[in-house]
């Protein structure tokens, strides 16, 4: 594993039971990267994210995160890795019975030694960072989809993670909210130096935020291309990647 690598996947085969989604994938995510996992529907992007977050084990291969192989590590070690990671799910996945502040306070109460007052203030700060200052006592049912994603991001950032994973961050958002969320992702990446891994097929987001990427292909069940998405657009390695990055090719 190179010095700068935060995540290193080696010979990774992802699937469920006998059904293989992706074979023998190798890639590396460096510290401070905004790394995009892209590809068409059914190519295994979300499953890859579930492997990276330790929710499922790969059929074969290893995933080394900050020096620990999470595919063979004990659950307690994987949990320690998870504490240094934040995840923003498609719908925000906020707990509906808790206020926004309580949602953010939950991981802080579980895994930090801060006093209750500081935890409360930190929750308010995280909400302010994502543009939701003053919404601390709102319930998820009282806010819009875009705001839920922002609140989900505030919760993902609660423990100052090294890596933040995003599952389809633009899904269900209007173009302006989507652009604002992209800006927020970049700002967090720049200000905190957080490594960002984004699973998406939203082209505008891919080109706006990504500085490294892999392209998964459902047909060949492999990584078909890798590199900066803007470079891939300029020099597409094959027809499939070109079509994907140009929404089916020029018409």
């Amino acid at each position, binding site marked *: 594993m190179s010095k700068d690598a935060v995540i290193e996947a080696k010979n990774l085969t992802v699937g469920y039971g006998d059904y293989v989604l992706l074979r023998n994938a190798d890639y590396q995510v460096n510290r401070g990267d905004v790394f995009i996992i892209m590809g068409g529907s059914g190519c295994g992007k979300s499953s890859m994210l579930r492997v990276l977050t330790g929710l499922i084990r790969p059929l074969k291969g290893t995933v080394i995160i900050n020096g620990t192989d999470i595919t063979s590590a004990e659950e307690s070690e994987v949990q320690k890795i998870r504490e240094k990671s934040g995840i923003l799910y498609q719908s925000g996945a906020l707990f*509906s019975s808790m206020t926004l502040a309580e949602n953010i306070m939950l991981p802080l109460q579980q895994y930090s030694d*801060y006093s209750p007052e500081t935890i409360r*203030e930190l929750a308010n*700060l995280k909400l302010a*960072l994502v*543009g939701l200052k003053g919404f601390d006592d709102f319930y998820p*049912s009282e806010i819009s989809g875009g705001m839920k994603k922002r609140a989900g991001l505030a919760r993902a950032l609660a423990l*100052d993670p090294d890596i933040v994973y995003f599952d389809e961050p633009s899904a269900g958002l209007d173009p302006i909210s989507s652009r604002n969320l992209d800006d927020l992702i970049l700002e967090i990446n720049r*200000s905190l130096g957080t490594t960002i891994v984004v699973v998406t097929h939203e082209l505008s987001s891919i080109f706006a935020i990504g500085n490294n990427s892999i392209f998964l292909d459902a047909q060949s069940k492999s990584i078909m291309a890798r590199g900066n998405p803007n470079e891939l657009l300029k020099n597409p390695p094959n027809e499939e990647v070109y079509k994907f990055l140009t929404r089916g090719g020029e018409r």
Partner: protein
Amino acid sequence: MTLTKVKKEIEIIQTGKNTLTVMISGDVIGRNVESSLNVLRDLLQSEIKKISFKEENLKNWDSSLVLLVYEIKCLCAENNIGCDISDLPHNLQDLIALAFAVDRKPTRGSGDDLSAVEKVGKGTLDLWRKVANVLDFIGSVCRGIGRAITFRSVMRKIDLWSALEDCGPKAIGIVCLISFLVGLILAFVGAVQLQTFGAQIYVASLVTIGMCRIMGAIMVGIIMAGRTGSSYAASIGTMQVNEELDALQTMGLSRVDFLVLPRLFSMLIAMPLLTMIADFAGILGGAFIGIFMMDLPCQEYWKYAFNSFHLNNFLVGTFHGFCFGIIIALCGCYSGLTCGRNADSVGKATTQSVVCAIVWMIVVTGIITLICQELNI
């Protein structure tokens, strides 16, 4: 002049008559901020006009430093004091700018700041709205039954069979077990008193009349409210969360025909039959105690049980089961259809369906008992 060192990494210095400087150095990781803020609040009582931040050899820092700077900046804004963070690292300055770049103000629907009279009025209107909704639902179900009787309903037969299987054959096991145990308990409790008069043989009559008249129906009602009514509320509530109910509506399909009628009809068929099964299971439970524990002669026991078995009692019990079936199905479906759009609401709908069904079953039992009393049944 150094005023205080809250932690060795954070030092508050008075650098001028009206100026404070917060010196930050080393590692600022996992710090609680209250002590620093309390010190600053005390210092702000004097004539301070400006607070500046200076960093000296600042190495590692986390959200606690961001929080400290953010809180001090908020404090300065509240007290009209200048705050200079230009000496702090650029990424920290960016984060503070981000935290202050609020793009919307929180607004909530009305209702938080109502007077007591307005709250009573609003509560009354809400109650009336709920009653109207329930009546509307019952009306829709009646119209749906009308459509079903005249073969104009969109109810699918497969849904009816599936619901019937779920609340019929699959429920027999638990109904038999619980009713058998209730008959057993009834016999035990009765036997203790009857033995004192040497009248233990009447345990057979007690259990037979008790189970057939009301206990069988009540036990089936409670089991089915918890088992099936709650599952109706949860499944329809989850459909609400997944927008399946909206899809039905936009396709022009009646929710009542599609979701409520199969469940209602299956309960109407299953509940009386389950009540009959429960009656016999309870009588068997009583016989088990009478014959095996109290050593009553088997023939004698069954003779007394048979003599106590009146068709009127049996039919009243079965009618209870029929009414309970309507109550459980309607409470379950109504709770599901009026469920909110999150996981918490599904839980609440499930609880509401069980509580409502049990309360209404007791109310209906009271009404039927009064009517039977008047009619000498």
